[in-house]
């Protein structure tokens, strides 16, 4: 602002000097010749005023306008900075380190404190509320004011019990009032992400350590004389170590699989896959497992080709996960129905069991990692608790959807839908009509 005043003063002086030059050099000598000495002051003055009026727009445009433009630009910049600060999600306030009085507060901070622009100018940091401690604050800014630290950043909990990060910096520009700039950032989401990551690490650690405990324990015991001299116990412990080593291997594979699939590190093929053939092959592949558990598969709607675009091996993995889950949770002698159907422009594969069903409490987290309806089942019937997570990721990476319907005591139906690949087959209406005609005519019992 002071620069602009100086420019105006200089302009005014130049203007006056110009008038004087104009009068004494150009106007006065000529007026003297024309009108004589008697009119020396009057006419030259009229001429000068006339000339000033003529030249003033030029002088304005040459001397003053550039400076007003600069001033307007400076004001526009200021408005822009202010708007930018106001629209920031971070809360920003500037206060005096001595009086603690606010010199600036952005809109986000004002909204948080419920103050208007006029109100905050009358407030100090002490007016923020009970959670502001003046003594602690002054102690915290001491190293900033003394120049020992350029800025301080720390985490805190605000009055709404949200996690925040506060950064304070001391500004001491020459000729200006020293001030403390505080930037308060909501880090709730970051904290949630950190917590989720920590919980994931903890869960993975737990899942890996549990079989490792059995392996280490069983092998450790085989070194004792009591076990070494008891062949039955020795064999039992070695079996235990081997079984848990397998479990550990499956876990590591599944953890890597779900991580790589989720992060896109694994590229999926984009082949034309006949879902009818895929379902039949999946039934064949899982038949042995089902027989072991005393259950059998029954397929419906797998006689006509239903083409989708995808990765055959990964879709086979989806089928294996859904079918083995259904087998695990079915009663002995139970039937598992595998149904292929069309749903508009999508193909739907459903796997229905008549097991115990999923309790309401477990439904929300059924696709989350390491979720099992009953963790004791992990040891009883196998599984890493990652199968459905992997299944969901694979289906979603095929632009498909996955879901389930379940009722306790009745059973569960898990299904996934994939977009039909229309280019290499008839229109969905034709396919659907043919599909309906043959759907119930061909059902295949396996197991």
């Amino acid at each position, binding site marked *: 602002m002071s620069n602009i005043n100086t420019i105006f003063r200089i302009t005014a002086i130049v203007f006056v000097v110009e008038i004087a030059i104009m009068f004494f050099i150009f106007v006065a000598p000529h007026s003297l010749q024309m009108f004589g000495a008697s009119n020396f002051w009057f006419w030259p003055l009229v001429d000068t005023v006339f000339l000033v009026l003529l030249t003033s727009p030029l002088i304005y445009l040459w001397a003053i306008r550039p400076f007003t433009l600069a001033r307007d630009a400076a004001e526009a910049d200021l408005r822009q900075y202010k708007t930018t600060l106001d629209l920031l999600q971070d809360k920003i306030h500037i206060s005096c380190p001595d009086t603690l009085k606010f010199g600036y507060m952005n809109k986000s901070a004002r909204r948080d404190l419920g103050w208007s622009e006029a109100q905050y100018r009358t407030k100090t940091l002490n007016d923020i509320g009970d959670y502001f401690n003046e003594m602690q604050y002054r102690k915290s800014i001491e190293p900033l004011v003394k120049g020992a630290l350029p800025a301080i950043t720390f985490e805190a909990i605000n009055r709404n019990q949200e996690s925040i990060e506060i950064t304070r910096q001391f500004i001491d520009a020459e000729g200006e009032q020293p001030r403390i700039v505080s930037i308060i950032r909501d880090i709730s989401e970051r904290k949630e992400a950190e917590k989720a990551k*920590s919980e994931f*690490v*903890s*869960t993975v*650690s*737990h*899942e*890996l*350590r*549990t079989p*490792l*405990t*059995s*392996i*280490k*324990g*069983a092998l*450790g*015991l085989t*070194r*004792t004389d*009591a*076990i070494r001299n008891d062949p039955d116990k020795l064999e039992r412990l070695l079996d*235990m170590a081997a*079984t*848990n080593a397998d479990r550990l291997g499956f876990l590591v594979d599944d953890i890597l699989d779900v991580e790589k699939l989720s992060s896109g590190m694994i590229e999926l093929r984009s082949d034309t896959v006949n879902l009818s053939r895929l379902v039949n092959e999946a039934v064949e592949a899982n038949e042995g497992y089902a027989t072991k558990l005393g259950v059998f598969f029954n397929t419906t709607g797998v006689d006509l080709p239903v083409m989708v675009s995808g990765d055959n091996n990964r879709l086979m993995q989806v089928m294996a996960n859904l079918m083995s889950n259904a087998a695990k949770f079915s009663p002995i002698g139970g039937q598992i129905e595998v149904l292929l159907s069309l749903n508009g422009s999508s193909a739907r594969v459903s796997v229905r069991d008549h097991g115990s069903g999923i309790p309401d409490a477990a439904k929300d987290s059924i696709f989350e990692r390491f979720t099992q309806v*009953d*963790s*004791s*089942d992990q*040891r*009883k019937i196998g599984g890493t608790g990652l199968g459905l997570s992997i299944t969901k990721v694979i289906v979603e990476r095929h632009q498909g959807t996955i879901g389930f319907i379940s009722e306790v005591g009745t059973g569960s139906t898990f299904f996934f839908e994939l977009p039909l690949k229309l280019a290499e087959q008839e229109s969905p209406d034709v396919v659907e009509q043919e599909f309906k005609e043959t759907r119930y005519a061909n059902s295949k019992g396996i197991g």
Partner: protein
Amino acid sequence: MAELTNILHVEDDPDIREIASIALGNIGGYTVVQCSSGPAALSKAPEFVPDLLLFDVMMPEMTGPETLTELRKLKGYENVPAIFMTAKAQPEEVEAYKKQGAIAVIIKPFDVMTLAGEVRGHWEKAIREAKPNVIPFLQKPGKSDARTNNDTPKTAGG
């Protein structure tokens, strides 16, 4: 000083139960009563008061800390030292278990050969630091013959 004799071990993994039974019973010489879940431990609790509670943390139905909270309400269980044996052992989790009343946390996988000694060390430290009048079982008779009592068949996973 009283001796550590009876241990109530609650663990849902049958393999780890079997290993701990050998480590504490056969090698350590303690009487180990094992339960496969928190509710099973609560139903077993009125029958006897152990010298030490050894709980897994992550169990279905009731977690170790939940089981401990419920057991503390039972007569005689108010001050029985408790140790959590867990594979879920981030530093902040270990701190949380201690705040929930555990005298120590044994991290899985544990060493079967030293488990009995480790458990005894934690128990003796807790006894030394506790006031004698709040530890009623200090007056119990000495160590009996080592034996293991499992409440559940080997196949139970609950």
